[in-house]
């Protein structure tokens, strides 16, 4: 089944992004989930190209995007502006927000239910 909603994880660190992916994927096995972490050369930072790839490669066309710290958000915004997809950047706790959205998407919840459960996690 193709799902309308997906999740993108964006972190300054490769391992953090991948680790978050592993944690979330364990519970949300069917949620379209992609991630990007670190700069192109593996340093701490954000990569426009990696994030763009994570957005484009995600099977869904409406994406909830979670980021660790504010500077990754700005790169994510530029990707969002240049991508054909709908990318909703969510100002929630990175791990907890991504986990929540992914589990709800996995269960086939509608957008209102997803947004309602993300609301208490907004901290940025």
């Amino acid at each position: 089944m193709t799902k309308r909603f997906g999740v993108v994880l964006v972190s300054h660190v490769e391992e953090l992004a991948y680790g978050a992916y592993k944690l979330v994927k364990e519970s949300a096995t069917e949620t379209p989930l992609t991630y990007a972490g670190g700069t192109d050369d593996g340093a701490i930072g954000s990569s426009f190209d990696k994030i763009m790839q994570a957005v484009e490669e995600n099977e869904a066309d409406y994406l909830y995007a979670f980021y660790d710290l504010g500077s990754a958000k700005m790169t994510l915004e530029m990707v969002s502006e240049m991508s054909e997809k709908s990318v909703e950047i969510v100002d929630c706790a990175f791990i907890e927000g991504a986990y929540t959205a992914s589990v709800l998407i996995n269960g086939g919840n509608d957008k209102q239910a997803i947004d309602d459960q993300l609301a208490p996690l907004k901290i940025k």
Partner: protein
Amino acid sequence: MTLTAKQTRAWLLNFSNKIHDNKQYLSDLDQAIGDGDHGSNMSRGVTAVEAAITDESLEKASDVMKKAAMAMVSKVGGASGPLYGSAFLEMAKVIDNEAIARVIAAGLDGIKKRGKAEVEDKTMVDMWAPVVDALQDGRLSVEAIEEAKAQTKPLKAKKGRASYLNERSIGHLDPGAVSSSYLFIALLEEVEVND
């Protein structure tokens, strides 16, 4: 008068050299109130800018500036990537047809839209805003740039990594404002801006 592709290239290459020369200094400033990577971020970014704008077939200033923008967005890795990138993108939209003061003002707008910072938040805005004012008055100078840089020191950071420090960010120059100072000193060195 408007900038040519040649002038824009010279400006950005001069800026790039200044960044490389001050890479460690910028990182040291960032270590004090951030995460210590502003110099390496900017160096990575301007290295990509050099490669992207060296192409002589870029005929218009806007072509050069747009290439620089995408290089910064793609390669810097830190907040200053999308910030300089947004500034350069907005400047690219007007650089072929507007005077320098309007061009830099467009760049400032790009930074404000991307980072949501205001004057006195201890960010790049605190360098760009006074420079825009000085250009509009036809009196941009190295002294004005250095003064704007010094004015960031007593500010408390309200945006970016430094904002986590609250009062402890006071007493430090903002690294992005310092790197921006090199952009405008380079501009003065390459272009007659006050005509």
